[in-house]
């Protein structure tokens, strides 16, 4: 399965980086998704 993409620039050097999330970033990405469950904006009905 393809991992999500991280994309950005270094403002000092102009270097652009675009790659798949590494192991640590992917683990945090999954943790963020898990932590978000049940949170806003699931209650958008207001």
């Amino acid at each position: 399965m393809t991992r999500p993409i991280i994309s950005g620039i270094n403002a000092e050097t102009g270097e652009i980086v675009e790659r798949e999330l590494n192991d640590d970033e992917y683990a945090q990405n999954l943790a963020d998704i898990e932590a978000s469950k049940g949170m806003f904006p699931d209650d958008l009905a207001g």
Partner: protein
Amino acid sequence: MAIKTFTTGEVLTSADTNTYLANSGLVYIGAYTATAATLFIDGCFTSTYSNYFITFQSTSVTTTGSFQFKLRASGTANSANYYYGGLQYYTTIGATTQQGSNDAAMIFSAASGSAMTYSTIQVSMPAVAQPTSIIIDSSSYFSNYAGASIRGYHGLSTAYDGFELTMNTGATIAGTLRIYGIRQA
């Protein structure tokens, strides 16, 4: 204080003009447009400025959710110690509160589908090893959602050189970041 005060009949020279351009209130540092799950700008927080103004416009997200802001040091995001509170705005009920204590990120505006969002993010003293103040104001429109105002801080006494935006649903974001330093004198 004015850099220079002109008098009647005085010629505005190219040197004067260049001086004013180099000393505007907001000094452009960089911008980045991409479509990805994580958008970042590194190397933007330095000792040159104490305070920064960031604009963020998104044109689409792949899954409804909320944007998250994190500080980065040497290419690695810090995912703890974000303390914040604020309001989420709705066209139907006005506002609800939102808060976080020692969260993995500062959560701000929601977004959905191709609904455009616009956020301004103010960051104070990120490049200094002390807690970093963060103020985020956003507008968004989908369903009955209207935007958010979130303020707080990152509690670690760490110096950061960049920031990143993600969504708490892990969605892919299409958006543009622009960052400016606030002129200090």
